[in-house]
């Protein structure tokens, strides 16, 4: 009966054929046209395991490692294998309770799943590691895994070296995804500045993983693997002995020390107080320590040597003189008669010296730090007839300051340097609505008014004087291991900068002699060292700040700059101690000790004693506890507002919790102060108002 249905056989074959063609087309689409599946398959099965190289080591000038690598251990757990273990025993070893244990196990499961190891406790302290190492066999599923950690063998140079931390999303974005989550990058100091040198080259090992994300072997027998290349080491100018001494002397003081080798611009030591132990930011406690330091109003994390901005005070005077000499508005024999004040402008500027002839010429004026003389010099510079009006004179002066590296960033090899401030015409225009003259800014001549400098800039200007006109940009790194032409970082540090070109050496000698007289007969007699000619300048700047709505007169900032020996300068130094009193009182002895240590390689017995004495002197400003209390209680209030959690605010609500404000000298009623409503000023931003002269 079915013979007439013969044609249907063809239709059936056609159906078969059409379906097969559809399948083939889809296969063609999947396997030949679309390339994404291969990539997806790679993502599925191949895990690029990053191999981290050792970071570079940083050496000091005598080849001692200041920043090195060491191995620490993490305790890791593979949740699925860690069953039926002696939980109690492990908890006792780790000193945690079982609830914490359960929480961590859950965390581990959540983070990496039950089949892969996750960190249970990281960076074990050595004692705990030893205890665990003995007992680890009792706890299947737990293992100790090595992790390289940075270590600072001298417990010093925290601000210079900086620290490393995990890359955050901002860093990852900026690096165009070069860094990945969990990578460690230099976050501050040399670690950050020389990141690409110290980092080395990451290696990749391609591993095959299975459907539960366990690594089961190497991919293609490691044909695509690349080896990790260790980071290159850095050779620096730092003398770690000097650095340690500087940090010791800055103990319990707010301030900074910078010592530079004038011939090269290499920084011998740079310390900022208050300080911290760099190892606090590497070990297991680093988060805790960081949090504590970040909330401290004394700001131990703040590098005052490059970020602290201070009025230069009298330490500016030699520079003012040099500018005037270079412009030709004075000669070394220029002199004025001073009887205790400068009367050139409506308001007199006091001078500490009254005896006749102390400002008879440039040399004596520097030696006695005559305010009248340098006010006059500044006015001559600003009113220089060559530029017709004070506007031109000020612009030229600002240009000179730039050549000295003042009022701008010097470009030291540390991140986030500040430039200080040198006022220019726009700044005065804004404040005086365009009507100002050289009298408006007369105190610039004695390093006051709107002028602020960083300790690094002060030290660098000493280098310029010591070198008789030139400097190298201050920097730490002498050389990079295996330096090639591509390492351009150090190029600009090897370039000589001429600050002054019109001054013959014998004129320089006059200024330098004046500075030597400061040590020999003037305010810095205590800085004398047997057999070494030291040239120096002290400085003192008045301080006021607003706290609790009233202006407090603070103790003066103590400043000292110097270089030595005069004939062949090997060290230039700047020391600033906040609220340290006269320049000679607290900054001078610190600078003196450092110079002695560096130049003679040791300290005399009397100096050792002196060093101990300074170390034990506490010059922390008395307002700090009050500021800390306000900062903490404000934060607690904010926290309470956001979360409704009153546990932090409670202790501030108790009676008598607030530290009583120590008695402070009342401000002079005459002084003209703009009221500032801000209660909390960012640390270090003391309102510096109306500085007067000082020797």
């Amino acid at each position, binding site marked *: 009966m079915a013979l007439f249905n013969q044609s249907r056989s063809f239709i059936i074959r056609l159906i078969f054929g059409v379906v097969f063609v559809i399948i083939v087309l889809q296969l*063609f689409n999947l396997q030949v046209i679309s390339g994404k599946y291969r990539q997806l398959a790679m993502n599925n099965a191949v895990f690029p395991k990053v191999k981290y190289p050792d970071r570079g080591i940083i050496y000091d000038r005598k080849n001692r490692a200041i920043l090195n690598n060491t191995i620490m251990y993490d305790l890791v757990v593979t949740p699925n294998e860690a069953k039926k273990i002696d939980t109690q025993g492990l908890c006792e070893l780790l000193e945690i309770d079982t609830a914490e244990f359960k929480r961590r196990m859950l965390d581990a499961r959540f983070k990496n799943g039950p089949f892969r190891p996750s960190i249970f406790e990281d960076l074990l302290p050595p004692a705990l590691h030893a205890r665990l190492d003995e007992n680890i066999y009792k706890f299947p599923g737990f293992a100790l895994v090595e992790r390289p950690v940075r270590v600072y063998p001298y417990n010093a140079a925290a601000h210079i070296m900086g620290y490393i931390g995990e890359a955050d999303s901002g860093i990852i974005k900026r690096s165009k995804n070069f860094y990945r989550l969990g990578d460690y990058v230099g976050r501050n100091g040399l670690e950050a500045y020389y990141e690409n040198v110290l980092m080395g080259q990451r290696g990749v090992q391609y591993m095959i993983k299975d459907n539960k994300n366990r690594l089961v072997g190497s991919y293609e027998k490691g044909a695509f693997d690349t080896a990790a290349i260790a980071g290159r080491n850095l050779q620096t100018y730092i003398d770690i002995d000097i650095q340690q001494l500087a940090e010791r002397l800055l103990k319990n003081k707010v301030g900074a020390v910078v010592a530079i080798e004038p011939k090269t611009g290499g920084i011998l030591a740079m310390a900022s107080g208050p300080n911290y132990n760099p190892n606090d930011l590497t070990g297991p406690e680093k988060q805790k320590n960081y949090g504590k330091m970040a909330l401290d109003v004394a700001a131990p994390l703040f590098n005052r040597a490059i970020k602290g901005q201070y009025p230069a005070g009298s330490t500016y005077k030699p520079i003012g003189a040099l500018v005037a000499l270079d412009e030709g508005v004075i000669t070394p024999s220029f002199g004025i008669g001073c009887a205790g004040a400068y009367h050139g402008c409506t308001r007199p500027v006091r001078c500490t010296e009254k005896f006749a002839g102390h400002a008879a010429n440039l040399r004596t004026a520097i030696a006695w730090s005559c305010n009248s003389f340098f006010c006059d010099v500044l006015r001559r510079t600003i009113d220089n007839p060559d530029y017709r009006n004070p506007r031109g004179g000020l612009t030229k002066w600002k240009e000179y300051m730039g050549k000295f590296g003042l009022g701008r960033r010097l470009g030291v090899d540390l991140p986030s340097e500040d430039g200080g401030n040198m006022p220019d015409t726009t700044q005065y225009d804004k404040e005086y609505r365009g009507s100002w003259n050289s009298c408006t800014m007369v105190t610039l001549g004695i390093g006051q008014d709107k002028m602020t400098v960083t300790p690094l800039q002060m030290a660098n200007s000493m280098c310029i004087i010591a070198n008789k006109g030139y400097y190298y940009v201050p920097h730490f790194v002498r050389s990079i291991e295996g330096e090639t032409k591509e390492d351009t970082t150090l190029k600009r540090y090897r370039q000589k900068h001429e600050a002054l070109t019109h001054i013959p050496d014998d004129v320089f000698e006059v200024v330098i002699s004046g500075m030597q007289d400061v040590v020999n007969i003037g305010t810095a007699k205590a800085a004398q060292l047997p057999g070494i000619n030291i040239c120096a300048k002290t400085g003192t700047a008045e301080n006021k700040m607003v706290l609790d709505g009233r202006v407090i007169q603070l103790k003066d900032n103590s400043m000292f700059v110097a270089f030595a020996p005069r004939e062949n300068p090997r060290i230039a130094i700047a020391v600033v101690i906040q609220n340290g009193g006269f320049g000679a009182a607290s900054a001078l002895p610190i600078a003196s000790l450092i110079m002695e240590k560096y130049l003679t390689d040791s300290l005399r017995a009397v100096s050792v004693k002196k060093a101990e004495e300074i170390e034990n002197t506490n010059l922390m400003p008395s307002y700090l506890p009050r500021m800390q209390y306000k900062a903490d209680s404000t934060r607690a209030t904010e926290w309470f507002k956001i979360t409704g959690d009153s546990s932090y605010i409670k202790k501030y609500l108790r009676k008598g919790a607030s530290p009583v404000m120590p008695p402070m000298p009342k401000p002079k009623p005459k002084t003209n102060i703009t009221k500032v409503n801000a209660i909390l000023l960012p640390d270090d931003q003391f309102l510096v108002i109306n500085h007067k002269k000082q020797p």
Partner: protein
Amino acid sequence: MIGILLLLLVFPFHTEVKGTNSIIRLGVIQIQPADICKLFVNLALAKYLSRIETNFSQPRSQLIAAAITLVPALISIAQSETGLALVYFSFFLVMFREGLPPSYLVIGFSLAVLVVATLLVDKNILAIVLTGIAFLSIYLLRRQIKRQRGLLATIVIIWITCVSVQRFAVPFIFTKVLQKHQVERIFNLIGRENPYANQNTVESTEVETEKPKKVDDNYNVKQSKIAIGSGGVLGVGFLKGTQTRFDFVPEQRTDFIFCTIGEGFGFIGSITFLGIYFFLLMRIVMIAERQRSVFSRCYAYGVASVLFFHIAINICMTIGLAPVIGIPLPFISYGGTSLLTFTVMLFIMIRLDADRQMVLR
């Protein structure tokens, strides 16, 4: 003669087997009767169609033939072996060869298109489109309608059927007849949210438990596509596929076995592989056509249809063209019953072919 003998054996045996569970355990051996049953149904259908008294153009015999195929299918569904149940629909190809009016195929195809359209297109738009088509055909056929009133009624009836299918039948099937995971699989395939997921309040508790399964299904097909896609033109080499070797593709020894081939041997390998299958099918059809007896021919077509259905659905499923239905790939997938059934089917056919001269009918 052999056919009659076999058939006598088949009827009691196959009903007997049907009553049991989906998989019988005989000691260490596991047998899936639903699988073997394909063979018996094939024989039964061939026998029925080859009877002299069967006039296949009569609706009555068509119904009986449909019953022979669909009853075991229903029993399979009862054993929750939906995949295998669908295989029985492949016997319609045999019936088509033996004179089933082509209108059945056309109607079936139209229904399929309608169901797919219902799933893909918004229901109101579809209703408007259908109405539009109805009016258009009335307008185009207005002269014939004047002559023949019945045609108008036919168009209206077709229109009512279409709308009711897309309005009521499909939602009914999806909420009441099919199981939750099957619905999910279908919607996964077309890449849409399941609109019926929340309608079924009775099974709402089950929705929660089915959720992970949905993800799994999607995962299966995704991984399978990745595996096949990563094979490229030439493949990564035998036993070198990273996807299949490390179990990224689940069920890869059984239902997703084609991934291994796709990844290992690439496009060229897959084509060769499909070519062999295609050659086999063509060969069976050729054998079928040279049979003198209707029984043998029907049987051979049955073998071809079942094989074809298995191959097409299984491969389509791995490359994301068909919903995931658990049916094995003939001769390749791991599974004893399947391998045995297909082998027996083929050998019976060869035997019949060898005896083709002896049979008169």
